[in-house]
């Protein structure tokens, strides 16, 4: 059915569903420029309806068995295949026990019915400024494993998002999995997002703390999504916590550094000042929670 509006229909394309990774990579080597990769499709099809994305081929990667792999190895880390749904991820116990910030993000990403289709890799590859996945993944120094007929390369999550709706993948590359290394021993983490009656996050904050009582080994990581076009980690603010001194004072200082170094944008969802206020308040709350844990 169509009422003449692009929102109701999809443009024409050809659907391809490779059964092996090699088949998919060979297809991308030939047709990468004209192909959009689809896993759950909830993002891609919505964009296509709005005619923001057009392509000759839609390549469905759900037929490739290894992309459904979800596995955790003690001491190594968590590997999340590109076709693993958010519902599958949320049902994986180690996510909450080891990677709490990522669990927080997935649990609040879209809704249960959409999570039965959508994937973490899909969220990440969309690379639009308000997505949830980068801030928690940066806390754990995750990387995207990209494959092409030419070989494999690992892209640090911090370098993966290049701009609004722009990721680091080349046209012949397929992002096959996200690897999330084992967190530092004893690490605790949280993630929180602000979204006012909409799925669009206005600002999101991730925090990770380990070895809080020993300044020489203390690790504090602070990451921010939706505050600017690309997500950022506040490396300068994190350095403050390697110093000696009462922790309350270090928190104060770090908040001032966050304020001075994390740049915010003004757009239809909120002003830069509003975003700065949100991340200041929430960084303070998360640090208080994690440093008292």
């Amino acid at each position, binding site marked *: *059915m169509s009422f003449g509006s692009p*929102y*109701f*229909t*999809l*443009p*024409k*394309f*050809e*659907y391809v*569903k490779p059964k092996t990774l090699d088949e998919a990579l060979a297809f991308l080597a030939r047709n990468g420029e004209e192909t959009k990769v689809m896993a*759950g*499709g*909830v993002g891609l*099809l*919505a964009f296509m*309806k709005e005619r923001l994305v057009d392509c*000759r081929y*839609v390549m*469905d990667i*759900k037929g490739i068995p290894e992309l459904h792999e979800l596995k955790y190895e003690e001491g190594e880390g968590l590997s999340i295949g590109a076709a693993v749904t958010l*519902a599958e991820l949320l049902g994986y116990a180690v996510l909450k026990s080891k990677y709490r910030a990522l669990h927080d993000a997935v649990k609040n990403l*879209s*809704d*249960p*019915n*959409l999570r*039965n*289709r959508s994937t973490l890799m899909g969220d990440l590859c969309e690379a639009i400024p308000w997505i949830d996945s980068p801030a928690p993944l940066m806390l754990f120094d995750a990387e995207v494993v990209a494959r092409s007929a030419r070989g494999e390369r690992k892209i640090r999550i911090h370098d993966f998002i290049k701009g609004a709706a722009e990721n680091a993948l080349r046209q012949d590359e397929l992002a096959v999995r996200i690897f999330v290394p084992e967190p530092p021993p004893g690490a605790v983490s949280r993630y929180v997002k602000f979204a006012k009656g909409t*799925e669009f996050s206005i600002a999101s904050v991730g925090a990770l703390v380990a070895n809080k009582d020993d300044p020489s080994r203390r690790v504090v990581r602070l990451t921010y999504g939706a505050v600017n076009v690309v997500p950022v980690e506040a490396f300068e603010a994190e350095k403050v916590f390697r110093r000696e001194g009462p922790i309350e004072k270090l928190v104060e200082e770090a908040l001032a550094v966050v304020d001075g170094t994390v740049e915010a944008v003004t757009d239809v969802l909120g002003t830069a000042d509003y975003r700065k206020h949100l991340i200041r308040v929430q960084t303070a709350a998360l640090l208080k929670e994690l440093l008292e844990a």
Partner: protein
Amino acid sequence: MMAMARKVTYTVNGVKRSADIEDNELLLDVLHEKMGVKSVKAACWRGECGLCTALVDGRPVKTCLILGVDVDGSEIVTAEGLAGEELLSPLQKAFVEHGALQCGFCTPAFVVTAHHLLETNPDATEEEIKEYLSGCVCRCGTYFQIVEAVKDAAKHYKKGKS
């Protein structure tokens, strides 16, 4: 580019159904227009309202964001298929008894989603019910009654399949 028609076959509410469709046709349209399944509703078309929800291979999903070709061979259950030989399932009866609808447009989506919840977690708390149904929108605002109906119907799922 050649827009070629493909034949897809689903098992819809226990009955094998086939249709010739194009690659860019949505599951929602295939069900609604080509297979006559009228309980899946077209409303927002962008995955926000959830009224096109159906159970595909056992899980509630939004059919406006799924390609018809993508789910070829799947088992699909919609509100029409919940009651079997009966007119209404116990969950559907609970919706009626609690007045959990006004215009009724969203009811099929809420019913199939709640059905899946109670099948997998018949002891769901009120919080869990609200969270699980958060992907569907009721413009008439009968959320309170919907949650009451789902809580009430849970007993039928504890005894065994409804």
